[in-house]
């Protein structure tokens, strides 16, 4: 059986890279330090594979083809899309994929999961939802990944219970997969964030500070049912038009199944970012 050694919840704001390359100003320092800290913790956890749960931003999965949950099953993944290179200044990158782990999660004949009907992709140009967390957390791009896409952008979405089920499924499958790997899960999403709406780019202010405080408290409680109850669609949508990506962080909480060792909504030049960490070594 494999071992879940770490669970991380992080932001993936693509504007951070260009801003930080220009220097770590005071309004970026806390975000920088959190990513540095998480990078070290991930290194210490010595994972063999990173299962990365995020949401494609209309680049790969669009309104003509929108799965609820999609597992990337390929021996390598390249990033990112031309418009993200142009607009955000992101670099093209490549990272190996873990086909064995992806197959374990999917199955080979019928789908293994009784709770989620996964789609799969054998070729997937990943976007900043995966490349930015990797750039911060493992810039060597040397640990194989299994990317999992969730639809949090194009309603109707899978509900919060499905995200919790995904986390539970990952935990249980990792523990019984017959492999002998050290596994880290990286979930990425937003706290209250507005992109393309009236409350975007508020100079570091949150479009909904009350939501941020509530959301961090749900996570810090370690109680997945509290978090599920909090994630009513209208509540998330009213906190900003892409706040629904917070749902991905429920995967991390459900996979860890306990209160995080670190939980913070970190203020920055942009909307506050979510940082959660669970050290899972020697938990089994």
């Amino acid at each position: 059986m494999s071992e879940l050694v770490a669970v991380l919840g992080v932001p993936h704001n693509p504007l951070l890279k260009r801003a930080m390359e220009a220097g770590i100003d005071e309004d970026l320092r806390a975000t920088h330090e959190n990513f540095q800290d998480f990078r070290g913790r991930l290194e210490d956890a010595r994972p063999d594979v990173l299962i990365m749960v995020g949401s494609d931003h209309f680049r790969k999965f669009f309104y003509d083809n929108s799965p609820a949950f999609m597992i990337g099953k390929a021996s390598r993944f390249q990033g990112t899309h031309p418009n993200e290179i142009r607009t955000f200044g992101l670099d093209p990158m490549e990272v190996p994929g873990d086909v064995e782990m992806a197959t374990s999660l999917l199955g080979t004949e019928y789908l293994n999961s009784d709770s989620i009907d996964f789609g799969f992709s054998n070729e997937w140009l990943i976007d900043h939802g995966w490349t930015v967390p990797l750039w911060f957390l493992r810039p060597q791009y040397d640990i194989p990944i299994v990317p999992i896409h969730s639809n949090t952008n194009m309603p109707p979405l899978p509900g919060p219970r499905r995200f919790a089920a995904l986390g539970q499924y990952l935990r249980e499958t990792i523990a019984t997969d017959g492999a002998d790997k050290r596994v880290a899960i990286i979930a990425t999403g937003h706290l209250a964030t507005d992109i393309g709406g009236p409350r975007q780019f508020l100079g570091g202010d949150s479009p909904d500070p009350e939501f941020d405080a509530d959301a961090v408290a749900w996570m810090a409680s370690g109680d997945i049912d509290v978090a599920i109850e909090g994630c009513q669609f209208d509540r998330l949508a009213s906190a900003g038009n892409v706040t629904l990506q917070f749902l991905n962080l429920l995967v991390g909480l459900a996979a860890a199944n306990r209160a995080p060792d670190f939980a913070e909504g970190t203020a920055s030049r942009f909307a506050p970012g979510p940082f959660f960490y669970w050290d899972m070594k020697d938990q089994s």
Partner: protein
Amino acid sequence: MSRFDINKFMMFVDGTTEALNEFCNDREGFVAGWVGAAEESVRPVPYGGSLSSDEQAALAGLDVGKLYEMGAHPYILLHFARAVEVDFNGVAFPDFDRAYKEAVTPHGYPNFAT
């Protein structure tokens, strides 16, 4: 009227530098070509899409407020408008952001489900 077709158009333009240049160099011509192509669409990957006259005018005229009010997805709309104004026309981002917010704010938060 179709939010899907508006979103598809904007993602196509923002998707590649070639499409962005082509659109910016002749916006009305590009929109006309897009609509015309949908009628001669080659399966299984249709190019182009059906757009009402209001939608064509809003896209060719870069009428951000109108597109937002129509229920364009805000993430897609922002990046489409930004690509045209900032990446292509060289507008400073703070100026773009100010104008963008002025355009969308009167409309609140329209439903953008397709």
